[in-house]
């Protein structure tokens, strides 16, 4: 096992990694920007190193500064968390060159699965279900139009290097497709430095279901079942749960198995998530593979009893997976609500500022992953995620009832958060019946004549 690791991240995931490392007896070094000088998570690190000013381009995204910090702190490995450099194959390469273990997949496996097009090719080999669409990047608008007429509209143009909704365009006809290709390509070029886009059949009315996989350095893989992340707003997940409600066990099993096999064949070591859309007939179509720990990993931890973040560290240190597939069992149901510092009344604009009141919920089956507390000032430079409220119950009904109660108890003031929206969602029939698709929250919000706060 490592004796010391550096955490190249901030906020709740930095604290999550500190907690995991501490239980493994591994020391932690946290890098931070000047805006995070007072970050409460830094208190729990064994050492902290300031690496730059507030903008992440000058701190959390600065490979040179992070590597320098790793060298002066003499760490064995770097955990990237999610976001920032987590899916940056170049960073993983630099770590390798500097003889620092990158806690995540090899640059090769990351590149293979992180690029959406090569990932589609991998999926084809392991019979992981994918959408009909391009095998290669779009070379000309005419080729794309021809393919689209074969697979039928609507289609979606996606950035090969993309993620999180950027570099995507939906087209219902030829004109929209032609303009969408150039727009998506430009956006992708700007966001990821790679303008390659491709075409897929687009599903209007689908659920988002994903499979959590772990692979070790000895060629073993485990699938930790599925999660449902259908509750989204503008492609940003708001509520996640495990297992995905109402999925036929045989379909679940087949998809999870093929996803695990894809990860195994990619020679992948670490945590990976294979994301799918699922239509009303429970047909699955792969969206992409996330080559890192996910924000929503806790719901899988709750139902499997496996500490995913600890496993990422153990795997990077060369340890084998602790269980066989048949030993991984599901218990109960888990739901996570993302608590964002955003004002739902004002189009979900981020709400940086001082938290003066912070009263967390508690009791059986309630878990809170947060880096904030009363007296903490949310900086404006970063993501608005300030916490994840996770519940576990014997079944989905109990989990929903528990989440309702926990949301009732949870008080954060004076900043606005997504808590009132979550309170409302837990009472929405579409959510409670799992009779939903990835656009249902947007439809709900649009159908309001007034704001959410008045309704809850």
């Amino acid at each position: 096992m490592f004796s010391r690791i550096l955490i190249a991240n901030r906020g709740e995931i930095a604290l999550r990694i500190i907690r995991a490392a501490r239980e493994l007896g591994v020391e932690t070094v946290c890098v931070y920007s000047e805006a995070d000088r007072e970050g409460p998570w830094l208190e729990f690190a064994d050492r902290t190193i300031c690496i730059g000013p507030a903008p992440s381009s000058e701190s959390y995204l600065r490979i040179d500064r992070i590597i320098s910090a790793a060298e002066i702190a003499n760490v064995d490995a770097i955990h990237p968390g999610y976001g920032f450099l987590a899916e940056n194959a170049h960073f993983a390469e630099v770590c390798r060159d500097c003889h620092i273990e990158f806690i995540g997949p090899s640059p090769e496996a990351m590149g293979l699965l992180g690029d959406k097009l090569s990932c589609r090719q991998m999926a084809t080999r392991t019979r992981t279900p994918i959408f009909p669409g391009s095998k290669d990047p779009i070379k000309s608008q005419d080729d794309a139009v021809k393919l689209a007429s074969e697979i039928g509209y609507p289609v979606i143009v996606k950035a090969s290097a993309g993620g999180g909704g950027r570099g995507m365009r939906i087209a219902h006809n030829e004109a929209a497709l032609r303009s969408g290709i150039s727009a998506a390509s430009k956006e992708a070029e700007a966001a990821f430095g790679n303008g390659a886009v491709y075409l897929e059949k687009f599903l209007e009315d689908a659920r988002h279901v994903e499979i959590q996989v772990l692979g070790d350095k000895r060629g073993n893989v485990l699938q930790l079942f599925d999660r449902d992340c259908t509750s989204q707003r503008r492609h940003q997940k708001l509520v996640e749960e495990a297992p995905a409600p109402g999925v036929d066990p045989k379909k679940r099993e087949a998809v999870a198995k093929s996803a695990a096999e894809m990860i195994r064949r990619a020679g992948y070591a670490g945590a990976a998530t294979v994301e799918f859309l699922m239509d009303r007939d429970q047909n699955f179509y792969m969206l992409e593979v996330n080559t890192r720990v996910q924000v929503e990993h806790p719901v899988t931890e709750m139902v499997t009893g496996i500490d995913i973040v600890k496993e990422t560290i153990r795997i990077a240190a060369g340890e084998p997976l602790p269980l066989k597939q048949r030993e991984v069992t599901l218990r109960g149901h888990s739901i996570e609500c993302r608590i964002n510092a955003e004002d739902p009344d004002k189009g979900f604009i981020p709400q940086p500022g001082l938290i003066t009141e912070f009263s967390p919920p508690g009791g059986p089956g309630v878990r809170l992953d947060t880096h904030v507390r009363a007296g903490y000032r949310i900086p404006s430079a970063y993501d608005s995620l300030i916490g994840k409220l996770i519940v576990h119950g014997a079944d989905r009904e109990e989990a929903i009832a528990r989440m309702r109660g926990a949301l009732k108890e949870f008080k954060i003031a004076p900043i606005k958060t997504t808590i009132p929206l979550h309170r409302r969602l837990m009472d929405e029939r579409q959510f409670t019946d799992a009779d939903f698709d990835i656009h249902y929250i947007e439809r709900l919000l649009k159908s309001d004549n007034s704001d959410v706060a008045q309704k809850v």
Partner: protein
Amino acid sequence: MLDIRKLKELVRLMVANDLTELDLRDSEEQVTLRRHRLNHAPPLDAGPALEAEAPSPRDTAAARTAASATIAASGLTKIASPMVGTFYAAASPDGAPFVTAGSVVEPDTVVCLVEAMKIFNEIKAECSGTVEKVLVKNGDAIEFGEPLFLIRPK
């Protein structure tokens, strides 16, 4: 004469806005209110690396903040590290240091090397004056923004 209503209003303002200090003066009187919070030290300005009140490392933040107050009063300036790395006072292990206390520096004077990722970066004074004190030792690991030298400006 001290206006009570004004004072009260200021206290309310202080609490509502989480201020840490309030000065109130009238012709006869001056009142200073400070309010230290339990969990939260006052945020430091995230300014450029080279300035009189450059941010100091977290673990000794309190001590160094106190020090920098004195410095500001005494008119000294800091040279802060623009990068994370290892501090070297001299170009070679046996060489003479670039500067020592009493050395005169100009903006282009190289004051030290900071090694980051096997590359030795020359750090320039970027100000004119006399070195008052060297704050770190040869071979020290230094953070971004960590003060390296105190300079008495010309």
